[in-house]
């Protein structure tokens, strides 16, 4: 497609497909742009996948990489195996972006909401990534990337249902990494602070601590290239969460943060 007088061309390497679970999220879209640009074939999984039509056109026109879309409701645990079989191949990299912040005050009064938050952020991603990891272990290679959250580092009144599910997810990823490090499978935990996405629409966020989706996607791609294990985004959140974790509980329980 490109001509050497018009553009600098690099070595052409064959890339294994990247599966993005939750491709309709702002982070998922930004990830597709980055991995597409780097020449990876893309598999995009989401609910009501027809909403991805214009994104698929865009990715195809931009990067000329193959782009496939697959329907997935991650809460359908029984259907996860069939979903993976239907992909036709085991992707080289799988990134799970699915998440649900929910409404904490409502969820406190509703077991239905609580259940949905816990299953969407923890149970369902753990089941799906667990099965993918098993298949990657059998193959002897692969990379699993989970988007958790700094909210999982310590429970706070304002979002502890979401936070506790993310805490579970973080621990799951940590254990999975521990188990698979001897089997050629990489597991990476991403812990964003604030990101300017649909999830945080309508909230007024501090600009210095708030990342843009494109920035997050670039950082994830770089972190994978460097073989990182746990990544805070923006990096300053590592320090912030360190401090927050160090506050003694007697004091912490009285704080409003």
């Amino acid at each position, binding site marked *: 497609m490109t001509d050497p*007088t018009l553009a600098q061309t690099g070595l052409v390497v064959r890339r294994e497909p990247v599966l993005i679970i939750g491709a309709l999220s702002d982070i998922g879209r930004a990830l597709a742009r980055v991995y597409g640009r780097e020449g990876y074939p893309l598999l995009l999984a989401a609910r009501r996948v027809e909403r991805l039509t214009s994104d698929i056109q865009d990715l195809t026109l931009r990067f000329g990489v193959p782009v496939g879309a697959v329907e997935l409701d991650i809460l359908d645990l029984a259907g996860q195996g069939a979903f993976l079989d239907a992909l036709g191949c085991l992707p080289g990299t799988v990134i799970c972006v699915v998440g649900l912040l929910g409404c904490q005050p409502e969820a406190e009064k509703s077991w239905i909401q609580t259940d949905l938050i816990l299953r969407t952020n923890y149970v369902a991603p753990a089941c799906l990534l667990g099965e993918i990891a098993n298949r990657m272990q059998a193959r002897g290679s692969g990379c699993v990337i989970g988007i958790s959250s700094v909210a999982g580092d310590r429970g706070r009144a304002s979002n502890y249902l979401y936070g506790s599910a993310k805490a579970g997810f973080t621990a799951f990823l940590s254990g999975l990494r521990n188990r698979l490090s001897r089997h050629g499978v990489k597991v990476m935990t991403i812990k964003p602070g604030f990101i300017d996405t649909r999830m945080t629409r*309508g909230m007024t966020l501090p600009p210095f601590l708030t990342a843009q989706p494109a920035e997050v996607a670039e950082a994830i791609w770089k972190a994978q290239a460097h073989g990182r294990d746990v990544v805070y985004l923006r990096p300053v959140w590592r320090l912030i969460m360190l401090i927050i974790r160090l506050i003694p509980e007697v004091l912490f329980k009285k704080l409003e943060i």
Partner: protein
Amino acid sequence: MSESGASVRLSGWGRSRMALCHLLRPVTRDDAVNDGSATSSLIARGNGRSYGDASLNTAATLSTLRLDRLLAFDPADGLLTAEAGLLLSDLLALFVPRGWFPPVTPGTRFVTLGGMLATDAHGKNHHVDGSFGEHVRQFDLLCGDGVVRRCSRTQNVDLFRATIGGMGLTGTVLTVTLALRRIETPWILQETVRCRDLDETLAAFEAARSSPYSVAWIDCLAKGGGRGRALMYRGEHAPAAAVPTGTRAPRLVAEPPRLRVPVDFPGWFLNGRTVQAFNALYYHHGRPGSALIDYQRFFYPLDAIGDWNRFYGRRGFMQYQCVVPTAGGRGSLLRLLDLIAAGGSGSFLAVLKQFGACGPPGQGGLLSFPMAGYTLAVDFPTSAAALSLMREMDHVVADCGGRLYLAKDARMDPAMMSATYPDLDLFRGICRAVDPRRRYRSLLSERVAL
């Protein structure tokens, strides 16, 4: 207020006016339709590169930056359809390597397609190719009545003409279809000519009529016989045969550069004397002759410095860009240059460019800026002296039948607006037909009573 936005302090590129705006950030076309439907009024905003208050509305400002998908491209004729928030920098990074170039480009690549359409942007090739709007085949417009209308030269023709150069006041542009043009290389054959006074400069423009691109940097602070001395740059896309074999293609820079101006400079940094010294240096440094240069250096020299607007300090700056008609153009320019030189607070960037005829009559944008003549653009640090100087310049411009560029303006009054834009009533009528309550409004439209 709608649930879907947050309050953010915004300004135009000149930063002379800040406003706390309710910012909406739709990700999909459906979001754009829904988000804007509930607000009392709104205006769309691209990359915030208009200089004044054109992309500000405190009730709702709808950012199109995440509506930036490519939707169709036909490599047979170069027709591209994309969402309106696509950045020109993205377009260049994607299409220059494939041998395509935008038909018109302004002096920065950090603008959106929607922004170029709404301002009917012009470039260094206006004398040959006209403005951006002439290359737009069609677009989808979300109007104030909630209806999305497809506009072209055969469909919703009035709305088509009102939207080109219409500063976003007809609605939110959702998609744009435009024709790209073929290039053989990413290089420009540039020729630099030194002109000792205005007559030489204007003669150089005449001589450059057949050059695809031309622009002059002009030393506004030179007085007496040297008034209007300039460096004129002419350019054309280099054919493959003009590029030595083995030349590496230039590195594409799609992101604003790391080299940024990190802080506001103190207000005194740019004063008459520093600017005069800079101008003299620049003028004598320019090397006449020809060179093969990267298209990015030719078209976007200032993009190499991120946030260069911060050179002007916290109070920001204003750009005065006017056009004066060809007939009597020399006299008008001399009068403007005299005023600027006497004011002594001109900028280190003053640009002169010849505009060509603007397509067949009755077809261009109703509020489009270009007309056959000369356009002069000067930056001033925001100050009371600069404001009164600009008012004096207004008289010269209005008297000769010229006008000001709305994309740059931050201070014109309604009288100047109505004296210099003849189709205002027609424009307002077209807006009202698709937006009975005139919900599409901006600080600019209120200031100049559009």
